[in-house]
């Protein structure tokens, strides 16, 4: 045992903190080490005299004087304030901790939001190249492919990529037309619900809107859209994709989801 350990043990013994085994160990050490034994004896003597001090405590009765100085009738309850305040370090104060967590949370949210926004808005890639969905964390690539519908004429070009999982059907539409065209995605509202419409790289003249059983796109120019539908029952159902020019259908096809 080092000198420091021995001194520590002797003090712990004085405080009554040593276990019986440690005490035996210490005593056997002291037998072989007279200097440490002397140190221990010195402390036992000091302890004895300190304990003796208690017996020499002066007995005093100050109650009458104290009570004389206290006037109960004029006593007013002071405002509720802790006399002893808990002194905490700055960082361990609850208000600082929660405040810091809040600021950190807001900052993280802002960063995440900026990142997502940048990822979705600034992308010039085709929707088929884009990863991830905004409903859950599953990647669009990991979803099952229903079909990819394509239409191409001299004035209009369309790609409709439909994929699905057990809960989500995601439709990514790339539409390109010189003149205004209307496109619809039609489905049975008993089987699907519109969850999200994401206008991705969409110009001012184009819009997308949803109703109970269809989504309508009014398109001019090159635009990209993502639609998410809630897959209510995971049973095989058709989704129709149609394109109209001057209210006359120029393309119509169906995609079956939940094939398996």
């Amino acid at each position, binding site marked *: 045992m080092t000198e420091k350990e021995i001194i520590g043990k002797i*003090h712990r013994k004085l*405080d009554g903190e040593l276990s019986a085994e440690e005490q035996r160990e210490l005593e056997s050490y002291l037998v072989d080490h007279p200097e440490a034994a002397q140190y221990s*004896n*010195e*402390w036992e*003597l*000091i302890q004895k*005299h*300190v304990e*003796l*001090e*208690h017996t*020499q*405590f*002066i*007995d*005093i*009765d*100050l*109650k009458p*004087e*104290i*009570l004389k*100085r*206290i006037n*109960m009738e004029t*006593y007013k*309850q*002071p*405002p*509720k*304030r*802790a*006399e*002893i305040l808990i*002194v905490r370090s700055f960082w361990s104060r609850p208000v600082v901790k929660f405040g810091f967590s809040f600021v950190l949370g807001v900052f993280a949210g802002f960063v995440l939001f900026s990142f997502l926004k940048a990822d979705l808005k600034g992308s010039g890639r085709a929707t088929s190249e884009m990863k991830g969905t905004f409903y859950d964390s599953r990647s669009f690539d990991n979803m099952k492919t229903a079909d990819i519908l394509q239409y191409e004429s001299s004035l209009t070009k369309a790609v409709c990529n439909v994929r699905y999982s057990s809960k989500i059907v995601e439709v990514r539409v790339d539409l390109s037309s010189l003149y205004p065209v209307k496109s619809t995605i039609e489905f049975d509202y008993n089987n699907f619900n519109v969850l999200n419409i994401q206008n991705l790289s969409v110009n001012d003249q184009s819009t997308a809107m949803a109703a109970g059983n269809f989504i309508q796109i009014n398109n001019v120019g090159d635009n990209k859209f993502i639609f998410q539908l809630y897959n209510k029952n995971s049973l095989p159902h058709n989704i129709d994709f149609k394109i109209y020019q001057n209210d006359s259908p120029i393309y119509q096809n169906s995609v079956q989801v939940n094939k398996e």
Partner: protein
Amino acid sequence: MVTKDDNELVYEVIHGSISSFEVLVDRYQKTIFNMMMRMVGDYETARDLTQDVFVKAFEKMGGFDFRFRFFSWIYRIGVNEAISWNRKKPPTERLDKVDPVSVETPEANGSEGKSKLLRHELRKMEEDYRVLVLLKYYCGLSYEEIAETTHIPVKKVRSRLFIAREQLRKGLVANGFFEND
């Protein structure tokens, strides 16, 4: 008769019971007075300061925080009173500033002589250390209770008390406390 604990009595004092306050005075006046004696070294001053401690405690009892224990609260008031009294005194009269050479060191003859020497060495200690030694040995507080009273972390209380004890022992050795034993 059921003995009420301190915090129950404090609650009753806050709600107007002077007899509960008397019980608290009975319980703590001896320890606080004797601690004051060791802090200020003068009977009359210790008497006055002990009264001040209880009057102050009574006046501030409405703000007592029941998360703490009463003894740590009142000992803290006591320690603060003694320290501020010591600081108000001219430096030459302050016990911790007294030149040890100018004060006659008692001889460590017999039990009484050793006790006097022990008190003398205690008075020579730095105030911060003296407070810890008094709370430990005279008030009988554990390390955790001292930490609660002084608002010093337990680890620091242990290390400071260790230093204080060593100071005390060295002073006693130098003045022949252990001779003839």
